């Protein structure tokens, strides 16, 4: 009986390096002293925000389908990206554009996906990363499986799965962290806790005080980090990824941030949350504090900020033009890639679809 009983207590202090005003509140990791490295992260965070605003605008003007905004998540997405290596594998949800952009996914590809075109999932790089994953939490098991492949082949690589706060209520998440722990897999699960699963707040999702502590039951390390602090996110993620790549096993990281936008453009968050809560969250947002840090460090100024904003706007405009200029796929695309070789049945139906191309559907 004694053997089966273990009393444990745990604390998950939230790791933070920059406070909301950009003041340094903990020891800076080495990369934070490298101005160029820091500016690379800041530039991408700024680009992600510019892209996001444009994507929402495209949806509002009927040029994009439903779109899930990443507003407010930039530090988590970029901090994680900077901690990953190109040979690692990412299993995203559907909001982590900045991580994907760091890894080579283009804004045109992101727009194609939300514009209703499968080619958005066929990014030119990184070829081994998973596609966007709408069925909640399912991607965590794919990451665990990829990690199993790395382990079997003895490769020093790590899989990384994102998941939202709501997603941690799904069975698949518990299955994934349990498997990862049981087999000491090289996989890191990053829970982006932005406070909301559409309209459901975290407090209605779970009685657990933190989501990081869900790692305890899986017997793996859990960490909580200020998800609006790119330095802290990168530091914690880098450590976890290095341990995993080195055969030291998996980890769960909970990044605390806030969904400053609606869930998607199809949502209206004013129905279920107060403007006051959103206003307070804006004071914590990630770009502001990093900009202040960079200004204090003497490697940034208003003139360079202006140049950056113009450059981001130009990059976004170029991507939008490419997206809008991409012709629709032919009806054949519906039948391509379902199997390695199309079946006789599909070839027959492909001909029917060709015959009715452009005159099918409800309008």
């Amino acid at each position, binding site marked *: 009986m004694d053997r089966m009983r273990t009393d444990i207590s745990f604390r998950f202090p939230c790791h933070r390096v920059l406070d909301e005003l950009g003041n340094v509140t903990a020891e800076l990791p080495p990369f934070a002293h490298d101005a160029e490295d820091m500016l690379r992260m800041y530039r991408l965070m700024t680009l992600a925000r510019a892209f996001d605003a444009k994507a929402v605008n495209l949806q509002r003007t009927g040029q994009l389908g439903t779109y899930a905004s990443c507003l407010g998540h930039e530090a988590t997405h970029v901090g994680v990206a900077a901690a990953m290596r190109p040979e690692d594998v990412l299993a995203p949800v559907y909001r982590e554009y900045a991580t994907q952009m760091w890894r080579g996914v283009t804004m045109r590809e992101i727009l194609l996906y939300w514009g209703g075109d499968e080619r958005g999932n066929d990014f030119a790089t990184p070829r081994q990363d998973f596609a966007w994953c709408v*069925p909640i939490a399912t991607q965590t098991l794919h990451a665990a499986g990829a990690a199993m492949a790395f382990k079997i082949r003895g490769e020093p690589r790590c899989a990384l799965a994102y998941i939202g706060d709501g997603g941690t209520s799904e069975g698949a998440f518990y299955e994934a962290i349990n498997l990862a722990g049981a087999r000491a897999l090289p996989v890191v699960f990053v829970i982006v806790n932005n406070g909301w699963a559409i309209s459901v707040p975290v407090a209605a999702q779970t009685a657990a005080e933190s989501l990081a502590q869900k790692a305890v039951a899986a017997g793996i390390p859990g960490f909580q980090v200020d998800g609006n602090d790119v330095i802290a996110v990168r530091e914690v993620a880098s450590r976890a990824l290095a341990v995993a790549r080195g055969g030291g096993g998996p980890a769960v990281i909970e990044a605390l941030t806030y969904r400053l936008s609606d869930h998607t453009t199809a949502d209206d968050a004013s129905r*279920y949350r107060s403007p006051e809560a959103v206003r307070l969250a804006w004071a914590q947002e990630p770009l502001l504090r990093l900009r202040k840090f960079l200004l204090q460090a003497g490697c940034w100024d208003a003139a360079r900020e202006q140049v950056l904003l113009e450059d981001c706007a130009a990059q976004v405009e170029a991507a939008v033009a490419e997206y809008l200029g991409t012709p629709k796929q032919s009806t054949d695309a519906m039948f391509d890639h379902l199997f390695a070789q199309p079946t006789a049945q599909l070839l027959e139906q492909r001909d029917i679809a060709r015959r009715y191309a452009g005159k099918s559907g409800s309008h």
Partner: protein
Amino acid sequence: MIEAIAMAHAWEMQADPCVVVIGQDVGANGGVFRATAGLQQRFGADRVQDTPLAESMIAGMSVGMAAQGLKPVAEIQFMGFIYPALDQIINHMSRMRYRTRGRLSCPVVIRTPHGGGIHAPEHHSESTESLLCHVPGIRVVIPSSPARAYGLLLAAIRDPDPVVFLEPARLYRAVRQEVADDGRALPLDRCFILREGGDVTIVTWGAMTAEVLRAVTELDEEGVSAEVLDLATLSPIDSGTILASVAKTGRLVIVHEAARNVGVGAEIAALVAEHGLYDLQAPIQRVAGYDTVMPLFRLEQEYIPGVRRIVDAVQATLAA
């Protein structure tokens, strides 16, 4: 249609204190399509509950609640997310009564949006009803108008057995119709004859009724009189109404959005082949979605069978 669905919920919650609504975002948000708008304010957070995000949990807790005498009406936000719940639906919900020899039962309604045509993201436009129709012990129902949504949802909630209630997403806001909020249910297990005609029988359901009725208008101009049946309850099938219609017209065209392969259309064709073969004057035609994944929305109108395909199929059966 969406208001009719909210209205049916409200009527039955008022009439029957055992009815409890659960799902993701059904509370303060009133459902992502507004199917449960206003219910939590009116009936409280115990009877209209936002659940944690887990579909298997929603179906499984419905089994437990129903076994205790409640009548859960559970929303699965999109049909593409129902798959984790199939374990609970197939292994427990559908056979609780059977396994326990009638001691326990599962009067549950699982509501979920069905089909494409609304420019939705990936996995949000599924029409995989035949997966569910294959399962013994559950009814699968799909309305095609606001009035039928109201009456059939009331019937589904009042039914003593589990019902999966599919809601054609592109009809949610497509049609406006005055619906009397009188608490009158429509019969389950029955087809609705949307239009009488003598030359050909067209069987369809859900949102495809709109395309079929447009095709029928076109056929009228060509002097073809089509009888249109809205299947409404996809499982079990009302074979009597279908066979009577085929006996009258001698021709059958089946139209559905779901993929053709092992679709509900195949079951209807088999029924008619078994019991009405000698009434047929021409081979049965199926007009269905292709046997591929519902494409993202840039191509979805190429996937959903259109008026042209339906008219051509009818003409083909008349020419045979």
